[in-house]
């Protein structure tokens, strides 16, 4: 009975009342059936559950969302895409999801040497891998996505392929006033010795209440090098859960940079499974929160084998009544000797009403490892501010300079120049500076 007090079943009923396609012809029938029984058994997390103790996304969804089915696809997207400045600047392979569903006709990857397929076109083996990395037992919202997704996008990068241009996955979202749900899903497979940069952005065509429940799975094979950038710059009525799971093989590198700049309540779960030696897992995050925005980043890195490393740096600047949550788990298993694992979470609170909860969680079974973690939460450095002002720099510019310098440490990990410039510009504007 204690279990049921920690879980919410009302939301399960609301979602399951919309029947998913469980016909025999659906290759994901098994996954969806399991997801359904998992949701029925466990429900959604409430504040009583440790992992969600600060982030009552379940309640927000119940309160704000009225329509549990997905919105219709958006018309006239071609024109909108053509005029999207960021997409044009990035000049990459653009993969478009129209209210959650991959739309090849709007996408641009004709000359690509990698494969892009909607889930409906996968062979049996490819289909069987969906849900194998970000498994439904990891998070109720992962299970929800598994039950609800109508299609998805699978990207296979062949062995040895080095992709120079970024792969840009763009979600266009347009929901009506009833508050709808969009549940995109992607599976990425990076073959041996491959290299790619994937940039995920979301474009909202209006500011209606929306629940975006995303899942992404990454299978990163030997010596593959993947850079994954994600920009969350939506609007004030956005509820979002993002679950990203990765399996990292030997000599491979996976770098994640996540920028969370707006939204009503966002929860990001990122997990790196470091399954072999000589892997590098990097997790960088920047959250700039104002108004009543609530962003919760949970990361999890699991070192299973020796001689790998992970680096983590999440930084936040919070003002008004915003709230930030950071939870960083590092597991170093007994076999994972000579692991180097570093974690930092630094925050600046600019108002008395902003709140931050930060928690490093290290569990180390190996005895020959280097692990460190640290978190700081403070105000803007008054001494530095005075120093700048004493040189004739106005208070506002001085603050902006200092905040930008603080944020810049995360932005420096973006190596794609166009994307970096874009992010620098919007972060600069947000922090009160001119670029």
């Amino acid at each position: 009975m204690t279990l049921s007090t920690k879980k919410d079943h009302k939301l399960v009923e609301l979602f399951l009342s919309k029947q998913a396609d469980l016909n025999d012809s659906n290759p994901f029938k098994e996954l969806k059936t399991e997801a359904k029984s998992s949701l029925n058994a466990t429900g959604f997390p409430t504040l009583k559950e440790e992992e969600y103790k600060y982030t009552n996304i379940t309640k927000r969804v119940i309160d704000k969302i009225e329509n549990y089915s997905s919105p219709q696809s958006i018309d006239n997207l071609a024109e909108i895409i053509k005029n999207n400045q960021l997409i044009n600047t990035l000049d990459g392979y653009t993969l478009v999801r129209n209210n959650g569903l991959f739309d090849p006709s709007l996408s641009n990857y004709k000359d690509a040497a990698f494969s892009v397929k909607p889930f409906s076109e996968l062979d049996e083996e490819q289909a069987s891998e969906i849900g194998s990395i970000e498994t439904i037992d990891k998070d109720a919202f992962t299970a929800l996505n598994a039950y609800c997704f109508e299609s998805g996008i699978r990207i296979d990068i062949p062995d040895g392929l080095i992709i120079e241009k970024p792969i840009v996955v763009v979600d266009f979202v347009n929901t009506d006033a009833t508050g709808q749900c969009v549940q995109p899903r992607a599976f990425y497979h990076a073959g041996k010795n491959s290299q790619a940069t994937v940039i995920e952005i979301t474009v909202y065509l209006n500011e209606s209440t929306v629940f975006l429940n995303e899942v992404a799975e990454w299978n990163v094979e030997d010596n593959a090098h993947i850079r994954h950038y994600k920009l969350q710059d939506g609007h004030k009525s956005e509820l979002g859960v993002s679950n990203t799971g990765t399996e990292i093989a030997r000599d491979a590198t996976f770098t994640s940079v996540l920028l969370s700049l707006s939204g009503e309540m966002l929860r990001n779960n990122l997990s790196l499974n470091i399954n072999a030696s000589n892997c590098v897992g990097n997790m960088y995050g920047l959250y700039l929160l104002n108004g009543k925005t609530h962003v919760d980043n949970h990361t999890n890195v699991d070192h299973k084998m020796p001689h790998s490393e992970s680096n983590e740096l999440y930084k936040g600047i919070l003002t008004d009544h915003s709230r930030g949550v950071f939870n960083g788990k590092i597991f170093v298993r007994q076999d994972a000797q000579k692991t180097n694992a570093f974690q930092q979470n630094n925050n600046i609170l600019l108002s008395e009403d902003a709140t931050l909860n930060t928690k490093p969680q290290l569990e180390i079974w190996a005895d020959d490892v280097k692990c460190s973690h640290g978190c700081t939460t403070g105000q803007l450095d008054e001494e530095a501010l005075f120093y700048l002002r004493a040189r004739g720099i106005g208070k506002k510019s001085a603050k902006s300079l200092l905040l930008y310098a603080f944020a810049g440490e995360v932005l420096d990990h973006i190596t794609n120049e166009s994307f970096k410039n874009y992010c620098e510009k919007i972060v600069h504007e947000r922090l009160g500076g001119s670029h």
Partner: protein
Amino acid sequence: MLSIKNLHAAIEGSPILNGINLEIKPGEVHAIMGPNGSGKSTLASVLAGREEYEVTEGSVTFKGKDILELSPEDRAREGVFLAFQYPVEIPGVSSTNFLRTAVNQVREYRGESPLDAVKFLSLMKEKMKLVEIDQKLLSRALNEGFSGGEKKKNEIFQMAMLEPSLSILDETDSGLDIDALKVVANGVNQLKSKDNATIVVTHYQRLLDYIVPDYVHVLYKGKIVKSGTKELALELEAKGYDWIKDELSGATV
């Protein structure tokens, strides 16, 4: 140029300055000496506008303006420069970007057009020679990882860039070896002109061998208790501060 009258200042309610009077004219160099805790650095901080100090009485006029009313940045723009005793390390802010912002905001205040990148860089090159500062240092974040001597050189370099009319050097000599001290003093001397003035706050007479003051003031318990010429500094060096303390306590008995 600077007129300090009966200046009283306190921090968190405890008084530190207890009635300072000082007149400084263009072209003059004034040294302010005194034992630890006498209020030397407080005076420098109050003039630069550090907000944790509260001025409880008195006035400070600079070129006819009441500068106590001005923000720290406006004081800097009016021409007051404080060389910090402990220059702040600011990671992520490049020295060049910082200086260009500072120079151009000062210029804007004075109604001058901003310097473009080319003009700014050539100005930097010219001023760098004054303090023999390595260009590599300036491509790094502001003061980050600089040695003590490099930080102090950087202060004088910034002073050269901003061309203040009143420079306040707050213990710029402390912690410097003799070579670095000479470089710093040489920079200050080259920047001296008949139109600007310098206040040298120091604990040691040593600096005054290189930056020769017109006047020396001894600060004790928040007041100027003795003023004289550079010979006073030598006397202090030879006899220490105790004779002044004795003189004062003798006077009150």
